[in-house]
């Protein structure tokens, strides 16, 4: 223990000497809390939704218990996470929902970020109503009938129109344009964070009240509050190119992993493992539900999943 501390102090002071002169490399700076007690560290970025937490929890558990790494996690929004990945502040994003602009800038032009392959989960955004409401009014699940029912969705916030609830400002959304272009009698109300949105959805569901919300799959909340998707005009390649004129549904996106290119090359076993990490929607939901609903710590939830799915993760380590 003492030797390690002395080594750390020596490393710190020599670093201080080195930085006294010459150029400082902004692309090579890790967290000051990393490698604190002589272990190799991998830093993973976690996004604010629970699915992303589930990926990271399982990856973290395996990295720590099977490969002997220390794992730091940083919670960052999606776009800043790309920036952090490019600078090497984090080593990997495990679940990306498609950011063409960032992909072009960092992966194709600057080559500071490398593709890490698919996560195995397909993501989909859409409009949802609770299933108890869809059972009462079966035709409510088509956008053409939404205006007929707008009075059901009125809240103090939306006034005389129906309320379409959107979530966190970090999420991809065309809802304002959709409401306008499909001539719907609705008002988009931004909950401002996923936490606020989930809390509100649960409150509505507890009282069996009607609601219409922007939501996405895979998501653990579906197990708790069953929801049915509302059909929007079908998605065709390129129909969402102009954000002002969008009048179609959201695409189905195979979720992707991205690694810092330096880490992808020199990350050893950890990088190889993260590239191979690939599981199913059901796997992810299983872990998410343990974290969000049973309030297990991400670590315990990961342990429980790992213990019962040996054959799945053995492949990632080979």
């Amino acid at each position, binding site marked *: 223990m003492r030797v390690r501390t002395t080594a750390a102090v020596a490393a710190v002071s020599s670093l201080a000497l080195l930085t006294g002169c010459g150029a400082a490399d902004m692309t090579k700076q890790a*967290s000051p809390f990393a490698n604190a007690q002589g272990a190799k560290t991998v830093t993973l970025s976690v996004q*604010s939704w629970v699915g992303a937490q589930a990926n990271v929890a399982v990856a973290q558990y395996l990295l720590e218990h099977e490969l002997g790494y220390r794992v730091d996690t940083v*919670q960052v*929004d999606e776009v800043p996470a790309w920036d952090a990945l490019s*600078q090497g502040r984090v080593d990997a994003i495990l679940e990306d929902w498609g950011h063409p602009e960032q992909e072009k800038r960092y992966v194709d032009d600057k080559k500071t970020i490398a593709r890490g392959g698919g996560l195995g989960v397909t993501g989909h955004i859409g409009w949802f109503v609770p299933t108890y409401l869809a059972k009462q009014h079966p035709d409510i699940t088509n956008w053409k009938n939404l205006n007929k029912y707008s009075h059901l969705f009125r809240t*103090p*916030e939306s006034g005389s129109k129906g309320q379409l609830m959107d979530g966190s400002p970090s999420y991809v959304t065309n809802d304002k344009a959709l409401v306008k272009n499909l001539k719907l009698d609705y008002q988009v109300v931004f909950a*401002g964070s996923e936490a606020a949105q989930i809390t509100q959805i649960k409150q509505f569901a507890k009282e069996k009240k009607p609601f219409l919300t922007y939501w996405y799959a895979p998501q653990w909340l579906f197990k708790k509050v069953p929801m049915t998707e509302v059909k929007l005009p079908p998605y065709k390649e390129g129909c969402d190119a102009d954000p002002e004129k969008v009048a179609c549904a959201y695409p189905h996106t195979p979720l992707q992993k991205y690694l810092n290119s330096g880490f992808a090359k020199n990350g050893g076993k950890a990088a190889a493992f993260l590239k191979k990490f690939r599981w199913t929607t059901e796997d992810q939901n299983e872990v998410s539900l343990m974290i969000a609903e049973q309030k297990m710590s991400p670590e315990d939830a990961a342990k429980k999943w790992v213990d019962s799915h040996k054959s799945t993760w053995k492949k990632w380590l080979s």
Partner: protein
Amino acid sequence: MATITANPPRIGLPGLLKNRAVQKLLLLAVAAAILVPLANARWASGTWPSALTVDFSEPLAKASDWIIDNRDSHPLFLYFFGHVSNVVVIAVRAVYLTLLAVGWAGVTALGALVAWRVAGVKLALGTAVAFLACGLLGMWVPTMQTLALMVVAVLASVVVGALLGLAAGLSDRMDRVLRPVLDTMQVLPAFAYLLPVVLVFGIGVPAAVLATVIYAAPPMARLTALGLRGADKEVLEAVESLGSTARQRLLTARIPLARKELLLGVNQTIMMALSMAVIAAVIGAGGLGDRVYQALASVDVGAALAAGIPIVLLAVVLDRVTGAAGEKLGAAPEPRGRLGWLLALAGVVAVAVAGRLAGRLDWPDAWVVGIAEPVNRAVDWMTAHLYSGVPVIGGTADWAGHFTTWVLDPVRDGLQGLPWWSLLLIVAALAWVIGTWRTALTAVLAMAAIGVLGVWKPSLDTLSQVLAAVAVTLVVGFAVGIAAARSDRLERALRPVLDVFQTMPQFVYLIPVVALFGVGRAPAVAAAIVYALPAVVRITTQGLRQVDPAALEASGSLGATSWQQLRQVQLPLARPALLLAVNQGLVLVLAVVVIGGLVGGGALGYDVVFGLAQGDLATGLVAGVAIVCLGLMLDRVTQPTERRAKKGA
């Protein structure tokens, strides 16, 4: 305005004309009569005319692209920002490793013994209990990370603030230049400058430390300048007559004389820095703030509280200890003071070595008490039983709905429906009546800047929420403040409650607020009230208690009832304090507008959050600047000029 209504009606027109406020208003009316038709003819529109806006989105987008493209190669980054960033990382790491090496027992002993020497036995015990509680909550390592970050950020803020304050204290011109800069640093919502800081430094600790310094340095600067300016003239003259140079005077007289203010500055800086701990977590600062933030993502109030409590404990302990140190300053030095320090130091070393030998550096996992589950159950019970269907009074959701429809909507629609020039006139009139033509001009220009930035409508939406929140805060705050001023027991009981409300990170109560009031503007207003209430209560209580007892006795001997005393003696005499409470209420409510954006408040708060989340400098920064302008305008409209002059720094 109060002066007008106070005029007895029997004074005729000539008497009214002599009243200064009326004169000002008449002058303003004349000016408006000329200018309004002109403006209306050119830009006939209810809201701010689009001809008078400037679009900043393109230059801002270009600036952010330039930074990203040049960050890895441009000399400015390689030779300046890069080094700043490295120094911060190394400093934080050094403190963190030291704290880990000392171990939990050592750190607790160190905290307790320093508190003992500085502030006495009682606070030493409190400090030890606070540290142990952080461990018991299972938050030892995150607490140490936050502490390491705080040590570095506070040191940097104190140095930067002291230098700025030195400049402002010694030169009048610097003072004039710095004052608006410091104002902006404090009012600009932290979320708005997180993005530029992140663009330059990247996600992580360096950006977090710098953002904290921007926020925490101004009080140090203000108080340093105040201390230097306030030094006793006679002492200075005496020192000067001894033939000392300017530098000697500064070092031997002015700075020592100002040490009380300096220490208060340090105290304020610590509090501000700690309040940034959670916001800095949004850009990857790690530590306790990150735990709060991650708990929010899984809607886990209990876990957020477990990480929020150590922040509150750190804040309260640091506040009390530095406060006690400030009170002890100037008292005669204790006999054998040095011996006490030596003893304390020896104690810390002994404990740290013992912990090391016993191999107990990390907090033992078995000693962790889980509070998350019972807290979550309590929150669930509360929301399940209060949300709706409570007999007679209705549920919280119903209140929120009524508040939105009956208060927020009319105020917002009213403000947005007023022609733009009439709002400028109202602002001018309010600011001029309470201050000078200069304050009026600043207020009008700030309001106009909002229009020029092209965010007139969302700003008025935000303004309506702020006004509603302040109105409720003042009604409740004055009532509680008056009650506390009349009962010592109530005041003592309130103190810890107010401490908790003031220092608990707002992220912790976001979920309960949404669970009670639903998504929308009502929970945003509720969160603002929770945050601003303690300051209003404190200022009101203090103002009432400072009313001259002689005046009270005199009125008492004349047979006034206690209600009459309150209404006719205490409240009028405490008027300056009450006005300050109004002003602080506004400033604090405005500070949580961004938090309101996270629970559905929309408008400017949402735009700032959106800017950060999407890396969109144009939206975020413009909305942030608009919040600053709103703050400037509200400050000028509510703060009488003579007090601003007295505030000095």
